[in-house]
């Protein structure tokens, strides 16, 4: 009896990166158009569709449930930003919300059987780089270029290399942490599927029935909990680093 290929389960563990759909040359650089970008578009479509759905027919009185959800989300993220960064950084709220939504939905997309956007290191590196740029911009905004450059020689000029290293390590660590959690989780889930399939084949089951319910328990942690935690931690660290880049007299103001 021939079993369809998609029912046979994974025959080998796949730990490679995203597929390259097409690539082209631009200014002598090879630009790859990968699977991740398509998945990002899907995620963006989901988020924007959800947002437009939630904010249809906004009213001041007699609000609908959709509007209540939208208002609650906006209030919650604004309060989080205000509590963590202080009032003067409240303008960062949409950026924080963007990263949070993108990260959560980009991770949760793996529940649909697609590759998680956040298991591509380049994506996380991009977000970390944006955070790095924002940190630098905040430092320059509050201290001027001179103050920013002087900050590297603080407290003594000998610390210069260590300061540069820690400056670069901040976004790298953020990106690696998120990437490691999501990609590690997906690899562990892949291992579980692979192992369960192998176990089924070992006890002469043609269709790997064991993979139906058992991984769901692990998936709760490795997909749902870990995704939410990592998204939350990513934005928390972003907020903390950016607000620390400003002067320290924030508490008195807030």
């Amino acid at each position, binding site marked *: 009896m021939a079993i369809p290929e998609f029912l046979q389960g994974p025959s080998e*563990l796949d*730990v490679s990166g995203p597929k390259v759909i097409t690539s082209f040359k631009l200014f002598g650089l090879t630009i790859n158009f990968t699977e991740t970008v398509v998945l990002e578009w899907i995620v963006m479509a989901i988020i924007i569709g959800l947002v437009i759905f939630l904010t249809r027919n906004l009213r001041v009185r007699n609000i609908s449930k959709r509007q209540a959800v939208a208002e609650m989300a906006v209030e919650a993220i604004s309060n989080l930003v205000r509590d963590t960064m202080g009032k003067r950084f409240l303008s960062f709220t949409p950026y924080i919300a963007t990263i949070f939504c993108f990260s959560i939905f980009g991770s949760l997309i793996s529940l649909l059987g697609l590759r998680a956007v956040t298991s591509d290191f380049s994506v996380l590196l991009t977000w970390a780089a944006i955070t790095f740029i924002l940190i630098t911009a905040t430092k320059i905004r509050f201290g001027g270029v001179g103050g920013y450059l002087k900050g590297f020689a603080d407290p003594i000029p000998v610390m210069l290399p260590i300061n540069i290293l820690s400056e670069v390590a901040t976004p790298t660590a953020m990106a*690696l942490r998120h990437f*490691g*959690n999501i*990609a590690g989780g997906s690899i562990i889930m892949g291992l579980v599927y692979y192992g369960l399939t192998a176990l089924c084949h070992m006890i002469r089951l043609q269709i790997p029935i064991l993979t139906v319910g058992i991984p769901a328990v692990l998936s709760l942690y490795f997909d749902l909990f870990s995704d939410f935690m*990592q998204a*939350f*931690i990513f934005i928390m660290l972003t907020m*903390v680093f950016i607000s620390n880049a400003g002067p320290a007299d924030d508490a008195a103001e807030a």
Partner: protein
Amino acid sequence: MEIPEAIVLAGSAVGAGLAMIAGVGPGIGEGYAVGKACEAIARQPEASGAVTRTMFVGCAVAESTGIYGLIIALLLIFLKPFT
């Protein structure tokens, strides 16, 4: 210098195992942090939200060393960079 592939694979596997020793530190540290958070919540139950949030962020930061170890181990096992 030609090294037999088997030795490289064995070395990678052993290296991956050694890399996962990095998981010990975060385990101890996070356990300590969670214990302290429990104490803090027991002392001030009204601050449980802030304590929990701070604890999770701290745990995540502490966990990053373990995650680096995990990444190295995964690289060594699945990507076999030295073969």
